[in-house]
């Protein structure tokens, strides 16, 4: 079978099966938190506006915050119970996030749902509004509102939907378990998206280190119109949107463009499963599969309610095995470190990786020896060592115009391979932030 790939990239933790052995064979287990703290700014775009107040009783799936602005999604209660607080908490964002805290009463009462019916027969024009109402946004990590992705502006033609089941990130097995245990949900979600957008071709892309998932999805996809399964080479960042499109379709997303400029929409398999729920059962997005791995007593794949506190998630896996040094929200390559374990699981958190204090230590930076390994590793074909040099010299214009730093996807491959342990990716993130701020000013 042909294995799709791209130039560059790395294979982190090759000797230990990308760290996935810890949770690979653990079935998804549902854990319902006693208290959930749901942030209003989980998605990209304006934060949602709370419509409940302290003391209100809410049911599961009840809308607790209204979407604001063009790219916003509503937020729903993930447990039934009483709202105990509407206040700002410091999450992973720059500024504190407005959060609604709900205490679970354990009754698990749902609101009245309005399902659209089977994905093959439901009215195609009702699917996108249903996705918006369900509060679905990209569950692979970026949390971009899905209904926006599904409605390309006039003039853009989308001919293929890619479902991203690469899960190239280290340690995480959430998407793998989802594809293995509930392949119908994933395929149904893909069909719903294809019908809503009028697209004839859908490919579910899975890395070759998940043969069981490929088997399960192939079985579930048999006989479904236009659904294919693509095998990817195990490589990081295979799951990056632009890398995935290049690998599978051989198309390049133009510089500064979006996947839809290449005629493609890429969705995470988790998002597809959530879309299937929204269409078939009318359920909003209230829970997600999250891998809890690393220095916890019993690493596991949990089905967690949105807003579960990180410490409760760690507790459900037997607590910390060692004093935690770093808690990555997401995998260890792309994840963001949480400031403390009081932060909560958002719609995009596919994993929680705990490093002990020893692992959390960063090596000291030394001088660049110009070995060029970063150039080999860069999946976007940039020149990291030269960009770092220009960053240090403050030549941001040069970085922007000649070295195209804005195309950097911040995957961290260059930093990973650098023998001098240079802080390459953070420097590029900083440069991108400065240049973005400059462009906003103009």
């Amino acid at each position, binding site marked *: 079978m042909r294995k799709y790939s791209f130039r560059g990239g790395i294979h982190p933790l090759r000797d230990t099966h990308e760290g996935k052995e810890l949770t690979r064979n653990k079935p998804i287990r549902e854990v319902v938190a006693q208290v959930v703290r749901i942030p209003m700014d989980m998605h990209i775009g304006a934060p949602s506006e709370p419509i409940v107040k302290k003391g209100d009783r809410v049911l599961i799936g009840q809308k607790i915050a209204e979407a604001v602005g063009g790219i916003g999604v509503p937020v729903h209660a993930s447990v039934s119970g009483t709202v105990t607080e509407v206040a700002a908490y410091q999450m992973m964002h720059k500024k*504190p996030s407005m959060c609604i805290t709900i205490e679970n009463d354990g009754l698990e009462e749902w609101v009245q749902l309005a399902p659209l019916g089977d994905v093959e027969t439901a009215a195609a024009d009702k699917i996108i509004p249903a996705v918006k109402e369900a509060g679905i946004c990209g569950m692979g990590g970026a949390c971009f509102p899905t209904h926006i992705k599904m409605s390309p502006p006039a003039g853009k033609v989308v001919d293929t939907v890619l479902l991203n089941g690469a899960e190239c990130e280290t340690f995480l097995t959430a998407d793998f378990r989802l594809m293995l245990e509930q392949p119908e949900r994933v395929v149904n979600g893909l069909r719903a998206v294809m019908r809503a957008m009028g697209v004839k071709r859908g490919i579910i892309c899975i890395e070759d280190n998940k043969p069981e998932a490929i088997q399960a999805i192939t079985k579930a996809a048999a006989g479904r119109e236009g659904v294919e399964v693509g095998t990817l080479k195990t490589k990081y960042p295979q799951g990056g949107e632009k890398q995935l499109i290049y690998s599978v379709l051989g198309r390049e997303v133009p510089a500064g463009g979006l996947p839809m400029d290449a005629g493609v929409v890429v969705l995470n398999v988790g998002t597809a499963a959530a879309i299937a729920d929204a269409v078939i059962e009318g359920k909003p997005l209230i829970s997600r599969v999250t891998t809890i791995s690393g220095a916890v007593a019993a690493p596991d794949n949990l089905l967690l309610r949105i807003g579960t506190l990180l410490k409760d998630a760690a507790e459900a896996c037997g607590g910390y095995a060692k004093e935690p040094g770093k808690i990555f929200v997401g995998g260890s390559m792309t994840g963001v470190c*949480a400031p403390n374990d009081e932060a909560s699981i958002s719609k995009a958190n596919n994993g929680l990786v705990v490093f002990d204090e020893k692992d959390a230590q960063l090596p000291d930076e030394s001088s660049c020896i110009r070995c060029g390994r970063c150039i080999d590793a860069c999946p976007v074909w940039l020149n990291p060592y030269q960009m770092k040099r220009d960053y240090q010299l403050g030549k941001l214009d040069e970085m922007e115009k000649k070295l195209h730093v804005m195309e950097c996807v911040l995957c961290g491959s260059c930093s990973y391979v650098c023998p001098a342990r240079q802080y390459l990716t953070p420097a590029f993130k*900083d440069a991108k932030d400065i240049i973005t701020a400059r462009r906003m000013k103009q």
Partner: protein
Amino acid sequence: MSTNAILYAIAVLGGLGIGFGLLLTLADKVFYVPVDERVVRVREAVAGANCGVCGYPGCDQFAEAVVRGEAPVTGCTPGGGASASALAEIMGLDNVDVEPTVARVRCQGGDGIAKDSFQYQGFKTCRHAMSLSGGPKLCPTACVGLGDCERVCQFDAIRMVNGLSVIDPDKCTACGACITECPNSLIKLLPRAATVTVRCMNTQAPKPANLSCDHACIGCKRCEKACEYDAIHVTNFLAEIDVEKCTLCEACVAVCPKQSITVSK
């Protein structure tokens, strides 16, 4: 070797030298470009740091702009009052009065004083540290202490002491480079005479402010009551001194329960 050969060589080279010398003298006279002598004098009177605070690429361009009348004579902040009056004299303007200013850090939250939210390690720039989860300190406007201002200062006036940026007022030329660099906008350009300053920018509510830093302004308004000159006001849980009205009586310094108001050099 005969003596003649040596003399011959000297004569040829000497002759060439004299010939080219005459040619150059001639070229100098023929292709003479008149230079406004005021440009030279202005160039000598400014600070000469090529810092760019005047808005021109360097001191030469600034001097030309001053002589053309495009740049104000007060444009050279590092040069201060001395350069401004010298420039005014050269340009034949009335003597201008420039109030000397100095950059002051409005934070006292060094290591152990402003409490940590998390331990930051890795890429050592304040801007990057501030982009993560609201920054490594509990106070959202605390000095991060990774030295972005120190690196940008051309006059060696900034030092990081116990994780806090400290500006030496004797070396500071008020060029303003650090002011734009600080991600928390903690450094302010204040008149040199205004020595009583609120060294805090925390606008959190009293309770979190109290928890986040030993020297945070909690907005208790004691200073407002103590001031006889209506010069200090608390807005948004933060005291601000009106430098026009302040008489440096230090009454507010005495009553501040958190030592947020200090007397600087």
